[in-house]
């Protein structure tokens, strides 16, 4: 298992987990979202091939109402 943090919450993913699996785990839509892995942007095309490891932080963001 791979223990990662997704949007601030602990998640257990399979040993060969990828960014794509982390996004699915969260139940996030795949359109209109972007992912940072330990603060580095992972382009959409690299989600399936980018492995996530124990202790890493995944942030999945989308546009919301806000700011000026």
């Amino acid at each position, binding site marked *: 298992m791979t223990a990662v943090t997704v949007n601030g919450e602990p998640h257990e993913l399979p040993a060969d987990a990828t960014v794509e699996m982390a996004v699915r785990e969260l139940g996030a839509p795949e359109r209109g979202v972007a992912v*940072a892995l330990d603060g580095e942007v992972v382009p959409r095309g690299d989600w399936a091939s980018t492995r996530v490891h124990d202790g890493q932080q995944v942030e999945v963001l*989308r546009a919301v109402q806000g*700011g000026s």
Partner: protein
Amino acid sequence: MLEIAGRSFVSRLILGTGGFRNLEVMAEAARESGAELATVAMRRVDPTARGSIVDVLEENGLEILPNTAGCFTARDAVTTAKLAREALGGEWVKLEVIGDDRTLLPDPAELLEAAEILVADGFTVLPYTSDDPVLARRLEDVGCAAVMPLGSPIGSGMGINNAYNLRLIIEAARVPVILDAGIGTASDAALAMEAGCDAVLLASAISRAADPPAMARAMRKAVEAGVEARRAGRIPRRHYARASSPEEGLAELERAEPSAPAT
């Protein structure tokens, strides 16, 4: 027409989407405002949230301008801009790097650094800046597509606190000047346009008004009125009155000493 980085816009009102009660009120206000550009923030996905702000804005004919609201360092702002580019597919970003929790004033050093990095990375950068003419020039020098000085702190509704600095920024700028933050009501927006701003960005003044769509309509008219008044050329201020009617031909109505009636 408002021109930013080679793009033309009929409306000189940019809508900030923060503070609306819900997406329906936001959509109605957006239509009333006539805005063609609307800012959005980037936040963690909430799988339970319903409705997509991007869809609602696009259905109403607005283009999305992501911001870096909530960032306090150049590093965070740059990463947030890149995430927005990934999520939304555009190269434009409204850059905000805040330096103080209470006033939400920009951090000039972090802002300039982030602007430089993002411009080099191909972004069209519209920075929210303080009303410092030197900082505005520096932002323009590193390649920002516009400068967005504050009138007063975000959400304060105090209007334009330093009209002199704003005038200096407008005089010197070779890129559009967009007044961002501080506008409280329609007259503030009109004043900004009369002062020579190319556009205004409004969020709280509309979204937190008692009737947001009605205020959006008022703001649209105020922006248009301000632009037209500036073009029309206002009269100079004078210390004393200047009569608007000619003195020539003035009737003599004060009767001279009445003569004794003829008997």
